[in-house]
């Protein structure tokens, strides 16, 4: 018989009410957004009258989760960066060289003289003059190996050492490379996050993708180029003693020296000692400021060890120039007038205010461990996003109206019941999207519109079935009951198969495609729920009140 127990009714209505309650904030999007921002600010920076006013624009007890708008609807920039993890290998080899040298020095008698050879970036090649001493040399270098610190690399060491005639070849082991890559990515993620957060844009997405890639999405930023400028620089700051200044970039800098171009003066090059005196890693703080001529500049403060090194060096080299180098370019090369022991300094160059602000941000956040290569970028202007939202709204309303009218014309009262369920259904989709904090994209809107069209399917299946049962001569109550019973397997099978494709889209898709799969998948869940519980309940309630002798479906 057509009976639904009271507690089931309560559960069904309660679920609907809950879903709708979560959907409501989206109808007052800007007000709730303001409220959320104000609450967050009060927590971070304390209350002000203005923030309190904004916060009270939306009641505290009401749900305040919103559907996030995707980049294509809100505007912003999307970057996919590939971290050049191999950059780190050569730095590791450079760092290893002094250790190897020290280890071999003690055994001059058997090994002879040692000299580093040029080779591939990720190899350390050392030539020994006495090839007979090779076994002893290998033994000494192998003793430098450290166990790999990672879950997968247990039991292996960080370097592999091989001998070839009179050359020792040191490389990183595969396990160590993996562990190093992982560290490099983690570090890059952290630094990119700090750099992006410094600018204070809202809700940036910064996540690892695959083995060596990082996805960066920043809503509200003007263009991907801007974002690149912000995070794109390695921002390696170093202070080097200057050997000479030259106009010829092809000059041979000599051993252990490097030649870098000047940032501001065209055609000017500096020959510098390769080993920096102090590096940006020893900075505590950097702030944009102005120099004594009123030009934009950056002031910085060293930490204790940096300050000591800088003090010692400047004290010993009064009258000599030293170079401030950023990413292999000489920003400036001032002469040391006196020992600088205050621990702070100023970088002047031909900056404008934005550049000095950005540089300060970069220096504060620290240097990236490896270079980034951008393999994908997308910029969407906020106006285009707004246009898409507007178009999507109009299209949804028209689609909605069309389906509602069509259903009412086709099924009369039952059609109207299905329509109520359809409206609830869209409300529930928004409620679920807000609850799980999903992101709504333009294809996502298309997914909702498609769901509007398809959601009626379950109801149509039931109604057609009821028609058939009536035709077969069943009474109204029995026809409704059988209609639901027999349509159930078709509803479930049809929706499960569609859900499978939505799931596959979600797993394999990215960005907008994923947004589409989320709304499609949620739409299937809510439409099955509304069709087999909500419309059924409504029909049963109607039936109990009216007790019709004959059904007209």
């Amino acid at each position, binding site marked *: 018989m057509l009976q639904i127990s009271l507690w089931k009714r309560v559960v069904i209505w309660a679920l609907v009410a809950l879903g709708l309650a979560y959907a409501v904030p989206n109808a007052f999007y800007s007000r709730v957004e303001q409220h959320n921002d104000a609450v967050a600010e009060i927590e971070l920076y304390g209350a002000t009258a203005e923030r309190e006013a904004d916060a009270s624009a939306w009641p505290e007890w009401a749900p305040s989760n919103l559907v996030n708008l995707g980049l294509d609807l809100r505007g912003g920039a999307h970057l996919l960066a*590939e971290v050049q993890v191999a950059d780190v290998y050569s730095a590791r080899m450079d760092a290893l060289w002094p250790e190897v040298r020290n280890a071999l020095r003690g055994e001059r008698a058997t090994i002879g003289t040692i000299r580093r050879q040029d080779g591939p970036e990720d190899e350390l090649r050392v030539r020994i003059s006495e090839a007979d001493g090779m076994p002893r040399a290998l033994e000494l270098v192998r003793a430098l190996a450290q166990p790999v610190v990672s879950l997968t690399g247990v039991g292996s060491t960080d370097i592999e050492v091989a001998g070839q005639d009179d050359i020792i070849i040191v490389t990183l082991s595969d396990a160590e490379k993996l562990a190093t890559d992982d560290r490099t990515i983690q570090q890059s993620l952290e630094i990119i996050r700090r750099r992006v957060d410094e600018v204070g844009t809202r809700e940036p997405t910064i996540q690892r993708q695959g083995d060596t890639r990082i996805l960066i999405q920043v809503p509200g930023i003007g263009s*991907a*180029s801007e974002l*690149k400028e912000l995070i794109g620089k390695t921002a390696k700051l170093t202070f080097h003693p200057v050997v000479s200044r030259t106009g010829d970039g092809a000059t041979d800098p000599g051993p252990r020296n490097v030649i870098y171009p000047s940032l501001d003066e065209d055609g000017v090059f500096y020959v510098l000692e390769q080993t920096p005196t102090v590096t940006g890693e020893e900075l505590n703080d950097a702030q944009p400021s102005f120099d004594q001529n009123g030009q934009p500049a950056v002031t910085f403060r060293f930490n204790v060890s940096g300050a000591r090194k800088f003090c010692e060096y400047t004290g010993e080299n009064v009258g000599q120039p030293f170079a401030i180098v950023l990413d292999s370019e000489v920003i400036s090369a001032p002469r040391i007038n006196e020992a600088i022991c205050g621990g702070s300094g100023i970088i002047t160059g031909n900056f404008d205010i934005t550049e000095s602000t950005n540089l300060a941000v970069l220096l504060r956040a620290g240097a990236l461990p490896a270079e980034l*290569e951008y*393999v*994908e*970028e*997308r*910029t969407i*202007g906020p*106006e*285009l996003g707004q*246009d*898409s939202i507007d*178009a*999507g709204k*109009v*299209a*949804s309303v*028209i*689609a909605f109206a*069309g389906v509602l009218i*069509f*259903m009412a*014309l*086709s*099924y*009369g009262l039952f059609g109207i019941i299905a329509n109520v369920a359809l409206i609830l259904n869209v409300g529930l989709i928004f409620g679920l999207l807000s609850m799980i904090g999903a992101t709504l994209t*333009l*294809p996502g*809107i*298309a997914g909702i*519109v*498609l769901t*509007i*069209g*398809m959601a*009626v*399917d379950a109801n*149509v*299946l039931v109604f*057609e079935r009821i028609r058939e049962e009536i035709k077969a001569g069943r009474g109204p109550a029995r026809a409704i009951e059988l209609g639901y019973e027999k349509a159930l397997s*078709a509803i479930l*099978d*049809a*929706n499960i*198969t*569609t859900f*499978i*494709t*939505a799931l*596959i*889209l979600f797993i*394999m*898709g*990215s960005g907008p*495609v994923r947004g*589409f799969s989320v709304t*499609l998948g949620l739409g299937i869940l809510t439409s099955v729920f509304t069709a087999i519980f909500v419309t059924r309940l409504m029909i049963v309630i109607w039936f109990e009140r009216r007790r019709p002798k004959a059904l007209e479906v």
Partner: protein
Amino acid sequence: MRLRLVPAETNWDFFSKTSITFGFSALLMVASVVAFFVIGLNFGIDFRGGTTIRTESTQAVDVGGYRDALAPLNLGDVSITEVFDVNFRDDQHVSQIRIEAQEGEEAITPETMAVIQDALRGADPAITFPSVESVGPKVSGELVLTAIYAVLAAIAAVLVYIWLRFEWQFSLGAVAALVHDVVLTIGVFAVVQIKFDLAIIAALLTIVGYSLNDTVVVFDRVRENLRRYKKMDLKEVLNLSINETLSRTVMTSVTTLIALISLYILGGDVIRGFVFAMIWGVIVGTYSSVFVASAILLRLGVKRDWSKPDANAGTQFANVDA
């Protein structure tokens, strides 16, 4: 009076002309494959790398002027198309410029982008750039593979699910219909040359889902009728099932089409290609669930009586698949 798209009682024979419908489907599939290889798809940057720039201006789009402005930059293959949409304001003129991936660059560099924008501003001072998208060849290659895997994975998952819920003959019929729909959709994209990008893959998978939805509803009824009418000829069972579900099939297709057509006309140009694919898919999917999926089921036959080893009674190929 109720709106009825299908008469209350239908008793149409859907399999009287299988040779014609099969021939028609086969012809279209061959045509699609030919179109795919001869004309080729108009791949978007997602799949072949490169950059698309959307321009907007209060002045009319001057395709020749833009082309002349970009010509000295030696950007390689550049395509410029004007975009029209009902939602545009009178003084809103939009175009889409596509530039192939530059030698030695993955995503476009800010320098290249600045040069391009300056050149276009020279041609039209009022021009703005509401969106710029750039995909490096490395990523686009991976996206192609992921897309192919996604479609194959979807088809495989469906094959398994239907096989579990029904019989392998149903499964083959459903998958044949899916392949039919996907091939025809790709074919139509080759012919009309709408941009084929990641969103279209999403549309393809949705078509897979939709077409399946339809097929499963028919099959569900076939399964039920096979149990009810144990002695009835398979062809009659199929015809009966399709007739019984016909009203529902048409209703759902129409409501879905109402929603999609509204989106196609009013939803803006950004997703028009995507919606086009789905409209096409709904039409083809509805057709294929009757004329491909069920027709193949009829050819394959169904094992109906589990007490005997071979009881494909009523099918001419009964002993082929025993």
